[in-house]
């Protein structure tokens, strides 16, 4: 890549931060060039974020309908998936999945809830709640 070909597309995903890329100048010498972003990278990142948001909203809708526990919504909301939540809490994935059942979740003891709350960086009480419907 030539230094003057380093993309400078303003990108939401960069949040104003310029990343360093390596490129050659007109004499073929390598050096670091700051990039405001690349359209391609911006698109794929936003697509991945959209997918996460879709899963999050889907979980929220199901939690409201009583088909899953608020835990699943909070997990996606914290940009986690089952594997990450299981790894960060040290709770086996099958148990986490079981805790997605509203009836099981309602009976969870404080200690278990606190483990989830700590891993997600929220208060235990918050885990039991869903955001108000109008937000």
């Amino acid at each position: 890549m030539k230094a003057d070909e380093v993309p400078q597309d303003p990108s939401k995903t960069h949040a104003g931060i310029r990343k360093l890329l390596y490129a050659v100048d007109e004499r073929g010498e390598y050096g670091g060039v700051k990039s405001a972003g690349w359209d391609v990278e911006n698109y794929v990142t936003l697509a991945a974020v959209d997918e996460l948001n879709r899963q999050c909203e889907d979980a929220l809708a199901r939690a409201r309908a009583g088909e899953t526990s608020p835990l699943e919504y909070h997990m996606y909301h914290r940009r986690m998936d089952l594997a990450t939540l299981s790894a960060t809490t040290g709770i086996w994935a099958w148990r986490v999945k079981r805790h997605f059942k509203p009836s099981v979740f309602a009976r969870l003891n404080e200690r278990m809830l606190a483990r989830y709350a700590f891993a997600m960086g929220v208060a235990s009480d918050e885990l039991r709640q869903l955001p108000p419907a109008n937000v």
Partner: protein
Amino acid sequence: MFDASAPFQHRQSAHCESGVVSNLLTHRGLPMSEAMAFGISASLTFAYMPMIKMAGMPVIAYRMFPGSIIRGVEKRLKMKWERRQFSDPMAGAAALNAHVAAGRPVGLQTCIYWLPYFPEEMRFHFNSHNIVVYGREGEDYLISDPVFEETTRCDGASLNRARFAKGDMQAKGLLYYPAEIPSEIDYERVIKSAIRWNYKTMNGPVPIAGIRGIRFLGRNIVKVSKQANAEKYLPLYLGHIVRMQEEIGTGGAGFRFLYASFLQEAGKLLNNEAMKQASTAFTDAGDEWRRFALRATKMCRGREKMDVDVLEAQLNRVADREQAMWAMLRGL
């Protein structure tokens, strides 16, 4: 000469680990560019790893596992890192404070999600982000995060949270700094042995690694396009590949430009024509990677007809270029 009282110099880098390593070594009196640190650690690779998942998709790695730059530099330079992990977060914080009080900049392994200075858009659960702490002012630690343009700050509670986040590749508070550096370095030996090592990893017999791995990925994309859920999954999968290649601090084209920069610097240092030519050839390979990313993304966006055979052909072109480049470095 090494001057312990000299202020720590923050240099922005493409990648966190090579940036921290080169900045710490430079501070310790061994001037080193990011590209050189990356090159002599022989951390360039390509691997398609279906057994390790990230966001439910196979990991596609363009560099060796986290920690390999730190260890690779140690092995080839015959230097020594002082490395400590902690089971108790309080002990980890106390050790950090002791180093800060002694005025010694140290590298830390952290989880990006808990670092408050990261913008919301970039925060995700990734446990192997390397930063340098070089001081403290009140409650805030002074941070040199190599992927940022300027130095930044982080409060103690968040920093400790980031150091002791649990999960895959957890840091356990890993703290490191150069303890011993040899007074003389035989760069000819170091660089050549690193390139030879990398030659082997890229030209190995394993079908999912090295140049064969690049071709494997091409075939895999075609295979995925025949799955029942391809219409939904394929664009996500392609996006995932492009993100692994470009987004996660690679210096462009999955570390290919960074490595080409290393080859150029090495070629000049040792006055070696083969390395200089290989650098140019590897830049071409990097450009082909960027073309792949552009094509794949266009297809995902519907600006070009989805055609997996075109993508496979493009990845084969990448593999051809990389193969040609390594042939130039054969028998070094």
